[in-house]
Protein backbone atom coordinates (compact mmCIF):
# COMPACT_ATOMS: atom_id res chain seq x y z
CA UNK A 1 0.00 0.00 0.00
CA UNK A 2 1.40 3.38 -0.96
CA UNK A 3 1.84 6.19 1.56
CA UNK A 4 0.06 8.66 -0.71
CA UNK A 5 -3.27 8.84 -2.43
CA UNK A 6 -4.38 11.92 -4.35
CA UNK A 7 -8.01 11.62 -3.17
CA UNK A 8 -7.26 11.15 0.52
CA UNK A 9 -7.70 14.83 1.32
CA UNK A 10 -11.11 14.90 -0.41
CA UNK A 11 -12.23 11.85 1.54
CA UNK A 12 -10.93 13.31 4.82
CA UNK A 13 -12.75 16.60 4.13
CA UNK A 14 -16.01 14.73 3.47
CA UNK A 15 -15.62 12.73 6.67
CA UNK A 16 -14.82 15.82 8.73
CA UNK A 17 -17.82 17.72 7.36
CA UNK A 18 -20.09 14.74 8.02
CA UNK A 19 -20.90 14.43 4.33
CA UNK A 20 -19.72 10.85 4.02
CA UNK A 21 -21.32 8.79 2.52
CA UNK A 22 -24.75 10.29 1.80
CA UNK A 23 -23.72 13.71 0.54
CA UNK A 24 -20.76 12.44 -1.41
CA UNK A 25 -20.52 11.97 -5.17
CA UNK A 26 -20.59 8.45 -6.61
CA UNK A 27 -17.16 8.79 -8.17
CA UNK A 28 -15.51 9.34 -4.78
CA UNK A 29 -17.40 6.41 -3.27
CA UNK A 30 -16.18 4.18 -6.11
CA UNK A 31 -12.67 5.38 -5.52
CA UNK A 32 -12.88 4.47 -1.82
CA UNK A 33 -14.06 0.96 -2.68
CA UNK A 34 -11.02 0.43 -4.87
CA UNK A 35 -8.40 2.27 -2.78
CA UNK A 36 -7.14 0.42 0.30
CA UNK A 37 -5.72 3.58 1.84
CA UNK A 38 -8.92 5.58 1.54
CA UNK A 39 -10.93 2.51 2.62
CA UNK A 40 -8.88 2.34 5.82
CA UNK A 41 -9.34 6.07 6.35
CA UNK A 42 -13.13 5.84 6.02
CA UNK A 43 -13.39 2.82 8.29
CA UNK A 44 -11.13 4.19 11.06
CA UNK A 45 -12.32 7.80 10.94
CA UNK A 46 -16.04 6.99 10.90
CA UNK A 47 -15.66 4.47 13.74
CA UNK A 48 -13.69 6.97 15.81
CA UNK A 49 -16.09 9.83 15.17
CA UNK A 50 -19.04 7.67 16.24
CA UNK A 51 -17.10 6.56 19.32
CA UNK A 52 -16.31 10.20 20.11
CA UNK A 53 -19.97 11.19 20.02
CA UNK A 54 -20.89 8.26 22.26
CA UNK A 55 -18.05 8.96 24.69
CA UNK A 56 -18.90 12.66 24.96
CA UNK A 57 -22.35 11.68 26.17
CA UNK A 58 -20.84 9.49 28.90
CA UNK A 59 -18.70 12.22 30.43
CA UNK A 60 -19.67 13.21 33.96
CA UNK A 61 -18.32 16.70 34.32
CA UNK A 62 -17.56 18.54 37.52
CA UNK A 63 -18.66 22.15 37.83
CA UNK A 64 -16.14 24.49 36.23
CA UNK A 65 -16.10 26.53 39.47
CA UNK A 66 -14.60 23.59 41.38
CA UNK A 67 -11.74 23.30 38.93
CA UNK A 68 -11.27 27.06 38.95
CA UNK A 69 -11.08 27.02 42.75
CA UNK A 70 -8.58 24.14 42.77
CA UNK A 71 -6.39 25.96 40.26
CA UNK A 72 -6.49 29.12 42.35
CA UNK A 73 -5.57 27.18 45.46
CA UNK A 74 -2.63 25.52 43.73
CA UNK A 75 -1.49 28.79 42.22
CA UNK A 76 -1.66 30.45 45.62
CA UNK A 77 0.30 27.64 47.27
CA UNK A 78 2.99 27.95 44.61
CA UNK A 79 3.15 31.72 45.17
CA UNK A 80 3.43 31.26 48.94
CA UNK A 81 6.23 28.76 48.47
CA UNK A 82 8.05 31.16 46.19
CA UNK A 83 7.75 33.89 48.84
CA UNK A 84 8.77 31.61 51.70
CA UNK A 85 11.92 30.39 49.99
CA UNK A 86 14.08 33.52 50.52
CA UNK A 87 12.81 33.87 54.09
CA UNK A 88 13.84 30.29 54.77
CA UNK A 89 17.25 31.20 53.36
CA UNK A 90 17.43 34.24 55.64
CA UNK A 91 16.46 32.08 58.58
CA UNK A 92 19.26 29.63 57.89
CA UNK A 93 21.69 32.49 57.37
CA UNK A 94 20.71 34.03 60.73
CA UNK A 95 21.25 30.73 62.50
CA UNK A 96 24.63 30.26 60.84
CA UNK A 97 25.73 33.80 61.74
CA UNK A 98 24.57 33.24 65.32
CA UNK A 99 26.52 30.00 65.50
CA UNK A 100 29.64 31.56 63.99
CA UNK A 101 29.48 34.49 66.41
CA UNK A 102 29.00 32.12 69.32
CA UNK A 103 32.00 30.05 68.29
CA UNK A 104 34.00 33.24 67.73
CA UNK A 105 32.99 34.51 71.16
CA UNK A 106 34.09 31.31 72.86
CA UNK A 107 37.41 31.35 70.98
CA UNK A 108 38.00 35.03 71.82
CA UNK A 109 37.10 34.48 75.46
CA UNK A 110 39.47 31.54 75.70
CA UNK A 111 42.26 33.50 74.06
CA UNK A 112 41.57 36.60 76.16
CA UNK A 113 41.41 34.47 79.26
CA UNK A 114 44.98 33.60 78.41
CA UNK A 115 45.75 37.29 77.68
CA UNK A 116 44.08 38.37 80.91
CA UNK A 117 46.40 36.09 82.79
CA UNK A 118 49.34 37.76 81.01
CA UNK A 119 47.90 41.26 81.68
CA UNK A 120 47.29 40.33 85.32
CA UNK A 121 50.85 39.16 85.64
CA UNK A 122 51.97 42.48 84.10
CA UNK A 123 49.57 44.45 86.31
CA UNK A 124 47.21 45.64 83.38
CA UNK A 125 43.47 46.55 83.65
CA UNK A 126 42.09 44.00 81.09
CA UNK A 127 40.00 46.72 79.23
CA UNK A 128 40.29 44.93 75.84
CA UNK A 129 38.52 41.83 77.06
CA UNK A 130 35.47 43.76 78.33
CA UNK A 131 34.87 45.72 75.05
CA UNK A 132 35.15 42.70 72.80
CA UNK A 133 32.84 40.66 75.05
CA UNK A 134 30.17 43.36 74.89
CA UNK A 135 30.39 43.63 71.11
CA UNK A 136 30.24 39.87 70.62
CA UNK A 137 27.30 39.52 73.00
CA UNK A 138 25.47 42.27 71.08
CA UNK A 139 26.07 40.50 67.77
CA UNK A 140 24.83 37.20 69.20
CA UNK A 141 21.64 38.81 70.45
CA UNK A 142 21.14 40.53 67.08
CA UNK A 143 21.62 37.31 65.13
CA UNK A 144 19.32 35.36 67.43
CA UNK A 145 16.64 38.02 67.21
CA UNK A 146 16.96 37.98 63.42
CA UNK A 147 16.50 34.21 63.37
CA UNK A 148 13.51 34.35 65.73
CA UNK A 149 11.90 37.13 63.69
CA UNK A 150 12.32 35.13 60.49
CA UNK A 151 10.92 32.03 62.18
CA UNK A 152 7.89 33.91 63.45
CA UNK A 153 7.27 35.34 60.02
CA UNK A 154 6.95 31.86 58.56
CA UNK A 155 3.61 30.14 58.11
CA UNK A 156 3.10 27.48 60.82
CA UNK A 157 2.75 24.84 58.06
CA UNK A 158 6.17 25.75 56.66
CA UNK A 159 7.89 25.40 60.02
CA UNK A 160 7.23 21.63 60.08
Amino acid at each position, binding site marked *: *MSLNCGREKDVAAMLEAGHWPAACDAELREHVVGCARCG*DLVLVASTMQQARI*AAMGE*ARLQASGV*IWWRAQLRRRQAAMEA*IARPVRGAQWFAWLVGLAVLVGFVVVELRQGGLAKVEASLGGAGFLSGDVSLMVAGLVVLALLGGVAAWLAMDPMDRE
Partner: protein
Amino acid sequence: MTWQQVLPRFGDGDTAMADAALPMDNEAFAGFYERSARPLWAYLARVSGNAALADDLMQESFVRFLCSAQMARGEVDCRRYLFRVATNLMRDHWRQAKTTSIEDVAEEVFAVKDGSAQVEALTMLGPAMAQMRPRDKQILWLAHAEGYSHKEIAEITGLGSASVRLLLFRARRRMAELLREGSSRRAL
Protein backbone atom coordinates in the same frame (compact mmCIF):
# COMPACT_ATOMS: atom_id res chain seq x y z
CA MET B 1 2.20 35.17 63.55
CA THR B 2 1.70 34.05 59.96
CA TRP B 3 2.46 35.36 56.49
CA GLN B 4 -1.04 36.76 56.36
CA GLN B 5 -0.16 39.05 59.28
CA VAL B 6 3.32 39.90 58.10
CA LEU B 7 2.51 40.44 54.44
CA PRO B 8 -1.28 40.82 54.21
CA ARG B 9 -1.25 41.74 50.53
CA PHE B 10 0.18 38.34 49.60
CA GLY B 11 -1.69 36.10 51.93
CA ASP B 12 -5.19 37.45 52.47
CA GLY B 13 -8.38 35.97 51.09
CA ASP B 14 -8.71 38.65 48.43
CA THR B 15 -8.89 36.81 45.15
CA ALA B 16 -7.95 39.79 43.01
CA MET B 17 -4.30 38.80 42.92
CA ALA B 18 -5.04 35.15 42.19
CA ASP B 19 -7.56 36.11 39.51
CA ALA B 20 -5.02 38.31 37.84
CA ALA B 21 -2.48 35.52 37.96
CA LEU B 22 -4.62 33.02 36.08
CA PRO B 23 -4.59 33.15 32.29
CA MET B 24 -8.42 33.39 32.03
CA ASP B 25 -11.13 34.93 34.15
CA ASN B 26 -13.76 32.74 35.75
CA GLU B 27 -16.44 33.39 33.14
CA ALA B 28 -14.15 32.84 30.18
CA PHE B 29 -12.95 29.62 31.75
CA ALA B 30 -16.51 28.39 32.34
CA GLY B 31 -17.26 28.83 28.62
CA PHE B 32 -14.03 27.20 27.56
CA TYR B 33 -14.62 24.30 29.96
CA GLU B 34 -18.16 23.80 28.65
CA ARG B 35 -16.87 23.55 25.09
CA SER B 36 -13.75 21.46 25.62
CA ALA B 37 -14.32 19.20 28.63
CA ARG B 38 -16.39 16.57 26.84
CA PRO B 39 -14.05 16.13 23.85
CA LEU B 40 -11.11 15.98 26.24
CA TRP B 41 -12.83 13.38 28.40
CA ALA B 42 -13.68 11.32 25.31
CA TYR B 43 -10.02 11.42 24.26
CA LEU B 44 -8.75 10.40 27.69
CA ALA B 45 -11.39 7.72 28.23
CA ARG B 46 -11.06 6.06 24.84
CA VAL B 47 -7.28 6.19 24.68
CA SER B 48 -6.70 5.07 28.28
CA GLY B 49 -9.66 2.67 28.27
CA ASN B 50 -10.49 3.71 31.84
CA ALA B 51 -13.33 6.11 32.65
CA ALA B 52 -12.24 6.77 36.25
CA LEU B 53 -8.72 7.57 35.12
CA ALA B 54 -10.15 9.88 32.46
CA ASP B 55 -12.06 11.78 35.18
CA ASP B 56 -8.89 12.30 37.22
CA LEU B 57 -6.68 13.20 34.28
CA MET B 58 -9.23 15.63 32.89
CA GLN B 59 -9.46 17.56 36.15
CA GLU B 60 -5.71 17.62 36.50
CA SER B 61 -5.32 18.77 32.90
CA PHE B 62 -7.63 21.73 33.45
CA VAL B 63 -5.97 22.67 36.75
CA ARG B 64 -2.52 22.57 35.14
CA PHE B 65 -3.82 24.48 32.15
CA LEU B 66 -5.09 27.24 34.46
CA CYS B 67 -1.95 27.25 36.60
CA SER B 68 0.33 27.47 33.60
CA ALA B 69 1.86 30.87 33.09
CA GLN B 70 1.64 30.39 29.34
CA MET B 71 -0.88 32.74 27.79
CA ALA B 72 -2.42 31.06 24.81
CA ARG B 73 -3.58 33.30 21.99
CA GLY B 74 -7.06 31.99 21.30
CA GLU B 75 -9.47 29.18 21.93
CA VAL B 76 -7.88 26.92 19.31
CA ASP B 77 -4.45 27.39 20.90
CA CYS B 78 -5.88 26.92 24.39
CA ARG B 79 -7.53 23.70 23.34
CA ARG B 80 -4.40 22.37 21.67
CA TYR B 81 -2.41 23.25 24.78
CA LEU B 82 -4.99 21.46 26.93
CA PHE B 83 -4.70 18.31 24.82
CA ARG B 84 -0.94 18.55 25.12
CA VAL B 85 -1.15 18.68 28.92
CA ALA B 86 -3.55 15.72 28.91
CA THR B 87 -1.30 13.75 26.54
CA ASN B 88 1.69 14.30 28.82
CA LEU B 89 -0.30 13.31 31.90
CA MET B 90 -1.44 10.13 30.17
CA ARG B 91 2.13 9.35 29.15
CA ASP B 92 3.31 9.89 32.74
CA HIS B 93 0.58 7.54 33.92
CA TRP B 94 1.69 4.82 31.52
CA ARG B 95 5.27 5.23 32.61
CA GLN B 96 4.29 4.25 36.13
CA ALA B 97 4.08 0.62 35.04
CA LYS B 98 1.45 -1.06 37.13
CA THR B 99 -0.95 -3.88 36.55
CA THR B 100 -4.67 -3.42 37.01
CA SER B 101 -6.72 -6.33 38.23
CA ILE B 102 -10.09 -6.93 36.57
CA GLU B 103 -11.73 -6.20 39.95
CA ASP B 104 -10.31 -2.67 39.89
CA VAL B 105 -11.95 -1.79 36.59
CA ALA B 106 -15.17 0.21 36.98
CA GLU B 107 -18.33 -1.74 36.23
CA GLU B 108 -19.59 0.83 33.72
CA VAL B 109 -16.66 -0.04 31.48
CA PHE B 110 -18.26 -3.43 30.82
CA ALA B 111 -21.84 -2.25 30.81
CA VAL B 112 -23.64 -2.49 27.49
CA LYS B 113 -25.83 0.54 26.89
CA ASP B 114 -28.78 0.99 24.61
CA GLY B 115 -28.12 2.83 21.40
CA SER B 116 -27.30 2.69 17.76
CA ALA B 117 -24.27 2.99 15.54
CA GLN B 118 -22.34 4.83 18.26
CA VAL B 119 -22.62 1.88 20.62
CA GLU B 120 -21.59 -0.46 17.87
CA ALA B 121 -18.63 1.77 17.09
CA LEU B 122 -17.64 1.68 20.74
CA THR B 123 -18.05 -2.10 20.89
CA MET B 124 -15.88 -2.48 17.81
CA LEU B 125 -13.38 0.17 18.77
CA GLY B 126 -12.74 -0.95 22.37
CA PRO B 127 -11.10 -4.33 21.61
CA ALA B 128 -9.19 -2.87 18.67
CA MET B 129 -7.88 0.04 20.77
CA ALA B 130 -6.81 -2.40 23.48
CA GLN B 131 -4.44 -4.04 21.01
CA MET B 132 -2.82 -0.82 19.87
CA ARG B 133 0.22 0.88 21.35
CA PRO B 134 -0.60 3.89 23.57
CA ARG B 135 1.14 6.36 21.29
CA ASP B 136 -0.68 5.00 18.22
CA LYS B 137 -4.01 5.32 20.01
CA GLN B 138 -3.27 8.94 20.85
CA ILE B 139 -2.25 9.81 17.30
CA LEU B 140 -5.25 8.04 15.77
CA TRP B 141 -7.72 9.75 18.10
CA LEU B 142 -6.21 13.18 17.62
CA ALA B 143 -6.23 12.78 13.84
CA HIS B 144 -9.56 11.09 13.21
CA ALA B 145 -11.77 11.94 16.18
CA GLU B 146 -10.48 15.46 16.88
CA GLY B 147 -9.47 16.30 13.32
CA TYR B 148 -6.03 17.70 14.14
CA SER B 149 -3.49 18.09 11.34
CA HIS B 150 -0.10 16.32 11.36
CA LYS B 151 1.55 19.55 12.48
CA GLU B 152 -0.88 20.02 15.35
CA ILE B 153 -0.47 16.39 16.45
CA ALA B 154 3.28 16.90 16.38
CA GLU B 155 2.88 19.90 18.70
CA ILE B 156 0.59 18.01 21.06
CA THR B 157 2.61 14.82 21.27
CA GLY B 158 6.09 16.28 20.94
CA LEU B 159 6.87 14.08 17.92
CA GLY B 160 8.26 15.27 14.59
CA SER B 161 5.74 16.11 11.89
CA ALA B 162 7.23 13.55 9.49
CA SER B 163 7.15 10.87 12.19
CA VAL B 164 3.49 11.62 12.84
CA ARG B 165 2.67 11.07 9.18
CA LEU B 166 4.40 7.70 9.08
CA LEU B 167 3.14 6.55 12.48
CA LEU B 168 -0.39 7.58 11.61
CA PHE B 169 -0.26 5.66 8.34
CA ARG B 170 0.90 2.49 10.10
CA ALA B 171 -1.48 2.89 13.04
CA ARG B 172 -4.45 3.46 10.75
CA ARG B 173 -3.62 0.38 8.69
CA ARG B 174 -3.31 -1.72 11.84
CA MET B 175 -6.52 -0.30 13.30
CA ALA B 176 -8.41 -1.00 10.07
CA GLU B 177 -7.19 -4.60 10.13
CA LEU B 178 -8.29 -5.01 13.74
CA LEU B 179 -11.69 -3.47 13.05
CA ARG B 180 -12.25 -5.76 10.06
CA GLU B 181 -11.16 -8.79 12.10
CA GLY B 182 -13.50 -7.75 14.86
CA SER B 183 -16.51 -7.27 12.59
CA SER B 184 -15.92 -10.58 10.77
CA ARG B 185 -15.64 -12.35 14.16
CA ARG B 186 -18.90 -10.76 15.26
CA ALA B 187 -20.59 -11.81 12.02
CA LEU B 188 -19.74 -15.48 12.64
